[in-house]
């Protein structure tokens, strides 16, 4: 279900047939096409929209137009309409952005914009996008989005912004770099020549030169003032007298002239103008409903013909709006003349919109009428559609405008409020609203036997939603608990959802089931976690949440890995990737994460080359193709490759970065980065820091064991073993062996074969340290038996020389011969490696390698750009990235370093 697009917002105003020709401004607009941005910034009434629409009509590039309004401060609405505007140029653009906007998981804005920019850069021809009335935007998110857009603007696109105040963009920087053309009030005001042409030709007056000069002086070329003056003059007997009076008056031009114009209208016209001034958009039947008059259509057409500041919003003359300035004065007059009428007018407008399927307008007018009961009814009924379209910001705006006492007696509305708050990450406030909703359910349950009627004071409009409310509340409760990390509560509520929600409600059932699966995972009950989570994902997929299902394969794969099922884990990732490809959208969210997961599995099999390739592929997908967690997961995966290559410092640096980028999600954090860092430190012999970590996390050999802390406890065993290796204190090895025995038992009970293999390896190494080789071979053989079918290599190879010796002993004993030979080959490979530092901390992308090859040639920058078919700016970005990665600051040293590292 798509969010409704208001076509009138995309309508390019058609210039009037009679208009002042302004070649000086047209020339500047045309010249500006070579730059990124044209900014038309001037107060109301300077003819901004008219100018742009005239220019657009004669422009040889296709133009997309978006008229902004206050509702566009809701980012979803803004971006949806922006895409719709772009689709008037390129039909197929923005499909994935729109679906991302509707996905139940909020998507990072930069990612969506990057996708859009990539699609724009594929448009074959140059075009113009006009954002009109940008001053209504005061959402920082939208300013930021525009800044991002301008920074990465493909050469195909030119942006025009018309606004009453300077937008919050880095104008100084844009100006300094020659990206900006500006037209301001001084440029827009009519010159004496244009004033004469406007008054006498366009407005059909025949004024004397001196009268024109007086009007020009009095209005200072302000176009709205001149138009109003012309309206006041039309049909007057004594024009010079009017002009003298106007010039001699101190009154604000707009007030003076609108009064003049209004006074000269017959009563019914005057009353029509005032009463319809409450409407953002005018439409014949709507005007009739509001004014109680008839023939609204004819009236609107007549006003347009009479130059009454009426702007058509479509070709068929169905919708209009007043010029903002004129509407402003009319509505001030309405409030002064008929203050008691205003609420009733809004109420009528609200009713008309409700009957004609535009709930948002109906709600807006009900709120303006301060008819809160009506507004609350309307919001409650609009909730399902708003939730499907993820317009939580709009819902939140409406609900905040309602008095609390109107909301809290409405359980359905209160639950909707909780949804909007949870979606906006306001977990605390959401709980209060959930309690409001629950209070009414408790009351109804108690009183059901006593009386059939609903409990006194409760208001419900959406009966169906009320019947489903217990399930809805339980799902919000589960999400709330999960967000706070309260697993038992999350499970309790998720189960309640399944009891309450019907079979065919795939999304709610799927979400609740997946939450249950995650809870089992957190508790270490992997078998059931895998089954339950997969079941939940199947439901989510049936409800169309593909991106969530792709993300879900990470959970499935990680559970498989803990179970020691590496092949299954690979299938889980491959399936996620397949899903993305089937969508025909290789950039679908989660594809980058799949490559990272596959990389880790390749690393474990000691296929480091493929592992690195996968990471490169993930990076090439761009950040928009990854979930927020991918940035740290990528670094962890790279760190472990480094570790396998023996570059421990490099690994540690990457883990530091990963720690900074860590973002939690609903998944349990079963492999904390701090523990990974400790393992590298142990390998470096930095035992002091390793013990510091153990102390900081309160770890000891006597702890109760749980799956959530298993990785940390195994790490602790490694720290203690390393100490034993240096101090040889008998007591400490007994402690470790005791801990390992308990860990092994817990892992076996939980069927966590992956953990069991590692624990058995550590037991073997501990025995070996004590010189008990036969005793060491017992756990080693068990470990080998478990590991062989799944193709583990690094889990042994990472232990280095002691493990190599142990495996050689095993080989002599004839234990798992073929497998052990394969493993031993992995050890010799490491020693054969000469320079591990040859790998960059961040690998170059394919594109960057192309650029690097050309940098080695004699071609100039612009020539290289041409060769690659990119702009000089894009080339500059690539070169800068290459320099950063190679840690150089000029072309020559970049080439030299690349040659040394054999990157070319």
């Amino acid at each position, binding site marked *: 279900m798509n969010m409704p697009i208001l076509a009138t917002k995309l309508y390019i105003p058609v210039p009037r047939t009679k208009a002042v020709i302004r070649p000086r401004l047209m020339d500047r607009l045309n010249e500006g096409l070579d730059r990124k941005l044209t900014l038309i910034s001037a*107060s109301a009434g300077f003819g901004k929209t008219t100018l742009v629409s005239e220019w657009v009509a004669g422009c040889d590039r296709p133009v997309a137009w978006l008229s902004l309004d206050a509702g566009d401060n809701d980012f979803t609405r803004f971006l949806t309409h922006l895409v719709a505007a772009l689709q008037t140029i390129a039909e197929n653009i923005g499909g994935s952005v729109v679906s991302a906007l509707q996905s139940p998981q909020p998507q990072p804005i930069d990612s969506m914009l990057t996708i859009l920019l990539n699609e724009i850069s594929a448009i074959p021809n140059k075009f113009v996008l006009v954002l009109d009335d940008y001053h209504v935007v005061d959402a920082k998110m939208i300013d930021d989005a525009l800044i991002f857009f301008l920074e990465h603007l493909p050469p195909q696109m030119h942006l025009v912004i018309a606004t009453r105040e300077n937008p919050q963009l880095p104008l100084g920087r844009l100006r300094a770099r020659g990206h900006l053309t500006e037209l301001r009030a001084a440029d827009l005001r009519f010159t004496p020549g244009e004033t004469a042409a406007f008054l006498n030709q366009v407005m059909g007056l025949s004024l004397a030169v001196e009268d024109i000069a007086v009007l020009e002086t009095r209005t200072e070329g302000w176009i709205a003032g001149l138009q109003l003056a012309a309206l006041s003059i039309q049909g007057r007997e004594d024009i010079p007298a009017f002009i003298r009076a106007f010039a001699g008056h*101190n009154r*604000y*031009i707009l*007030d003076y002239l609108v009064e003049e114009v209004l006074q000269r209208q017959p009563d019914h016209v005057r009353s029509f103008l005032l009463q319809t001034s409450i409407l953002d958009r005018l439409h014949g039947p709507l005007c009739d409903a509001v004014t109680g008059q008839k023939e609204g259509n004819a009236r609107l057409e007549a006003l347009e013909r009479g130059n009454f500041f009426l702007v058509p919003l479509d070709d068929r003359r169905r919708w209009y709006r007043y010029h903002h300035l004129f509407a402003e004065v009319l509505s*001030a007059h309405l409030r002064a003349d008929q203050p008691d009428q205003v609420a009733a007018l809004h109420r009528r407008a609200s009713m008309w919109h409700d009957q004609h399927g535009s709930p948002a307008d109906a709600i807006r007018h009900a709120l303006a009428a301060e008819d809160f009961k009506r507004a609350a009814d309307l919001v409650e009924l609009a909730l399902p559609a708003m939730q499907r379209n993820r317009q939580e910001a709009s819902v939140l705006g409406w609900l905040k405008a309602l008095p609390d006492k109107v909301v809290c007696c409405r359980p359905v509305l209160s639950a909707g409020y909780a949804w909007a708050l949870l979606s906006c990450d306001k977990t605390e406030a959401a709980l209060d609203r959930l309690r409001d909703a629950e209070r009414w359910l408790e009351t109804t349950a108690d009183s059901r036997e006593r009386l059939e009627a609903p409990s006194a004071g409760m208001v419900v409009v959406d009966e169906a939603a009320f019947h489903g409310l217990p399930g809805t509340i339980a799902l919000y409760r589960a999400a709330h608990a999960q967000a706070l990390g309260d697993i038992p509560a999350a499970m309790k509520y998720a189960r309640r959802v399944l009891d309450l929600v019907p079979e065919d409600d795939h999304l709610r059932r799927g979400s609740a089931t997946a939450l249950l699966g995650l809870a089992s995972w957190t508790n270490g009950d992997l078998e059931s976690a895998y089954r339950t989570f997969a079941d939940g994902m199947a439901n989510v997929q049936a409800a169309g949440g593909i991106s969530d299902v792709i993300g879900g394969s990470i959970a499935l794969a990680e559970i498989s890995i803990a179970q020691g099922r590496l092949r299954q884990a690979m299938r889980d990732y491959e399936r996620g990737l397949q899903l993305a490809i089937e969508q025909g959208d290789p950039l679908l969210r989660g594809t980058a994460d799949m490559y990272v997961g596959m990389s880790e599995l390749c690393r474990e099999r000691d296929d480091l080359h493929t592992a690195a390739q996968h990471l490169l592929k993930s990076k090439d997908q761009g950040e928009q193709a990854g979930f927020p967690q991918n940035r740290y997961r990528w670094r962890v995966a790279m760190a472990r490759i480094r570790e396998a290559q023996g570059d421990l410092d490099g690994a540690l640096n990457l883990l530091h970065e990963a720690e900074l980028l860590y973002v939690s999600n609903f998944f349990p954090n079963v492999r904390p980065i701090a523990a990974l860092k400790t393992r590298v430190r142990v390998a470096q012999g930095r035992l002091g820091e390793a013990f510091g970590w153990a102390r900081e996390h309160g770890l000891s050999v006597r702890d109760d064991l749980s799956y959530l802390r298993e990785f940390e406890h195994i790490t602790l065993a490694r720290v203690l073993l390393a100490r034993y290796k240096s101090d040889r204190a008998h007591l400490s090895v007994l402690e470790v062996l005791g801990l390992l025995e308990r860990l092994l038992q817990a892992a076996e009970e939980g069927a966590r074969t992956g953990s069991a293999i590692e624990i058995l390896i550590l037991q073997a190494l501990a025995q070996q340290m004590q010189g008990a080789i036969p005793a060491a071979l017992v756990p080693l053989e068990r470990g080998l038996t478990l590991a062989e079918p799944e193709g583990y290599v690094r889990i042994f190879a990472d232990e280095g020389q002691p493990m190599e010796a142990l495996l050689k002993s095993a080989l002599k004993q004839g234990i798992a011969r073929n497998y052990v030979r394969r493993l031993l080959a992995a050890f010799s490979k490491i020693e054969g490696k000469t320079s591990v530092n040859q790998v960059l901390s961040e690998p170059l992308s394919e594109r960057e390698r192309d650029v690097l090859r050309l940098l080695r040639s004699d071609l100039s920058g612009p020539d290289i750009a041409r060769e690659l078919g990119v702009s000089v700016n894009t080339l500059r970005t690539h070169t800068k990235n290459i320099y950063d990665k190679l840690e150089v600051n000029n072309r020559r040293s970049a080439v030299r370093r690349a040659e040394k590292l054999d990157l070319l």
Partner: protein
Amino acid sequence: MTNHQSSKTDASEAFVYQIRIKGHLGPWRSDWFEGLTIRLEENGDTLLAGPVDQAALYGFLRKIRDLGMPLLSLERVKSD
């Protein structure tokens, strides 16, 4: 040098502000500028004055922008 005055400036606190705009406003404008006195000066300016907090002040400035009225000056005056 310390500036004692600025330490008192709190966005939630109301001060008396004077806004000078060019041209005389019609009397029916007063409900747009609720809480401000509207004085029409002989030189053709309109002086809006009254105790407002920062949020209200920005609201009035936006209103003036939307009316397309030239803003001549804005100052904070002593409240007594």
